[in-house]
């Protein structure tokens, strides 16, 4: 998977070496995780979005999104996106990022903990991806008295109720009760709950686009190999038409996610265009995830829903990721309200401005 991005190339090499989906799927335990994480960390990828003066790699947003695209292509089941997002959040507030896996919150709409005047943070955060394995938490909080703050917390400061996503990855409820952060800084203007969701939405969109590319590969390859009625099923028009639809969904996802990532990466300050792009990406990629996973499973048949086959590593993460940082419906209502408020005559100019 060649691209013109040396940061993403580095990620690809590590993922190929340590996180091959077939190997991971065959692994009987989690022993692959530690060396894989170490390699990602040593390459600076986990702190890609942290400035060099805050202990990070200082990669651009675009490079980081390209890394997440790769992570999606490998159905990576490590908190890389989460740690990167946490790093981004800390960096925005000028807080140095620690080593080790982090979780970033809120990942669900309408859930902002509160930072009291004493600097302690309280609140319940549901559906936090990789909350349990995180060594630190980066949390956006609403400040008592107004404004927002970013808090870095040691995991021990939180009560974490472990859960799992439909992919089997950690999806946890984090409860903060007067938790004392390691650091707490005022969030810059514009960094509110929606801004965190937006960044998370684009990250997940890139991961999903990568996973969709891979299931298109898997299904296409399988169709060329699997024989039924004395010829490869790829020769059946019904299979061809299904795979063409899968290609269409994948293309829409790649285009929407890539465009949103580019928009976020190049916007000096977030604006309505960035919002349109991010919302549209999470909606359209989420729709493609549902449709695409269904088509891939239909093409692969029985083999595709065994544990043994690698397909489920991708499809289950597509089903999981579309729910994080606002699902399609959440963003659609938000986007629809904006469009309606701007009015009919502004719709085309808004689209054409992108």
């Amino acid at each position, binding site marked *: 998977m060649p691209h013109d991005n040396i940061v993403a190339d580095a990620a690809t090499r590590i993922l190929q070496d340590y996180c091959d989906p077939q190997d991971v799927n065959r692994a009987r335990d989690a022993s692959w995780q530690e060396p894989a994480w170490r390699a990602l960390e040593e390459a600076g990828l986990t702190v890609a979005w942290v400035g060099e003066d805050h202990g990070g790699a200082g990669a651009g947003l675009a490079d980081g999104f390209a890394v997440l695209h790769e992570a999606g292509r490998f159905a990576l089941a490590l908190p890389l996106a989460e740690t990167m997002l946490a790093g981004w959040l800390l960096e925005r507030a000028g807080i140095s990022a620690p080593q080790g896996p982090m979780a970033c919150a809120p990942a669900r709409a309408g859930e902002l903990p509160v930072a009291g005047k004493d600097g302690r943070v309280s609140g319940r955060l549901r559906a936090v991806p990789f909350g349990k394995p995180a060594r630190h938490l980066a949390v956006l909080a609403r400040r008592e008295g107004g404004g927002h703050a970013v808090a870095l917390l040691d995991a021990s400061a939180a009560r974490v109720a472990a859960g799992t996503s439909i992919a089997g990855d950690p999806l946890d409820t984090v409860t903060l009760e007067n938790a004392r952060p390691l650091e707490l800084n005022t969030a810059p203007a514009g960094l509110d709950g929606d801004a965190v969701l937006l960044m998370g939405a684009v990250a997940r969109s890139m991961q999903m686009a990568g996973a969709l590319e891979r299931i298109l590969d898997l299904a*296409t390859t399988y169709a060329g190999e699997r024989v039924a009625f004395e010829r490869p099923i*790829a020769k059946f028009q019904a299979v061809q038409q299904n795979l063409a639809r899968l290609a269409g969904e*994948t*293309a829409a996802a*790649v285009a929407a996610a890539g465009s949103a990532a580019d928009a976020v990466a190049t916007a000096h300050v977030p604006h309505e265009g960035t919002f349109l792009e991010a*919302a549209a990406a999470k909606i359209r990629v989420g729709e493609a995830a549902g449709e695409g996973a269904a088509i891939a499973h239909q093409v692969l048949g029985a083999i595709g829903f065994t544990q043994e086959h690698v397909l489920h590593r991708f499809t289950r993460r597509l089903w999981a990721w579309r729910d994080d940082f606002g699902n399609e419906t959440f963003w*659609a209502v938000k986007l629809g309200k904006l469009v309606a408020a701007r009015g009919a005559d502004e*719709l085309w100019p808004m689209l054409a401005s992108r």
Partner: protein
Amino acid sequence: MSSALQFDPMRLPPECEALRKEVRAFLARELEAGTYNANEAGNDQAYSPEFSRKVGAKGWIGMTWPKKYGGHERSFLERYVVTEEFRVANAPVRLHFVADRQSGPVLLRYGSERVKADVLPRICKGEVCFAIGMSEPGSGSDLFAAKTKATKTDGGWLVNGTKVWTSNAHHAHYMIGLFRTSPPTKENRRHGLTQFLVDMKTPGITVNPIYQMTGQHDFNEVVFEDAFMPDDHVLGEVDGAWKQATSELAYERSGPERFLETFYVLPELVRMLGPEPDTRGAEGIGRLVAQVHALRRMSVSVAGMLQAGKEPVVEAAIVKDVGTIWEQKLPARARDLAAFAEEETANRATFEAQLRFATLTAPKLTIQGGTTEILRGIIARGLGLR
């Protein structure tokens, strides 16, 4: 193969945005002047010599063609902006659009010098309407089954046979026709067809209307009876049309007109649901906007590749497949979403007229210029399945 699907986040360069402003100003003036009516459903089909001449005078036809043939040597991306703004405005481009999109590029590539020097500048002026003579009573999706025959004669060819579903033929000055000059061979059933430039004034050509269920007259039957085509109206290789058929298709397939055909319904729906729609209405609008945004970003991406000299055949087919399905389903979605709009909304009559026209138009969007099934076959071939 699939990971080769390329949809980079192409952005239109600044000169495009300047051009867009100019186009919008032009359209606003023409609308004001009453040259056309943006709210008249189906108006995009309108044939307006006056309007096309003005567009030609602005330099917005043949934008990417060489100046020596009347073109303007501007980029595909600039042409893209003009196309999408005209489309969204329901501007009456019927006279020049086919010539600009498809026929001109064919002439540029395969026409004799005399033909190019004669016809292309007139296309650029907005004076010349083209039709495409491909389908026949016995050949629709399967173009290579064409039977209309061109027989060699002194200084040219005599054509006999019938084309059908020929859009514009009743207006057209020229047609690009696909005629059989030899029988197919055993090895290659696509062999034996030749493209011709057909002057529609040629004696022996009769155009009969085929009315659509919308009541519109767009399709025609075109009958050839010993119609004479001079030798220099042959386009490209005799018997070799099959080699020429695909290269133009990428931008025929991926343009903004491939997902904006019924777009007019969407702003009207937004107007009808008002500034504060309920959750149901907001979700519906939000999803539709996300989908059309994604399509436009795919389409612009393909335009960028064309500008860079690439031939993104599969990507273009995908844009048309996903785009035509979207524009086909849009009226049904809009109908559902409008179900609880206030009866007395100011734009109800406009919305209902547009919705009706879009509903009647929708079926043909996944047929014309390559059916869904054909497009998906092309995509499947691109994936290495066939």
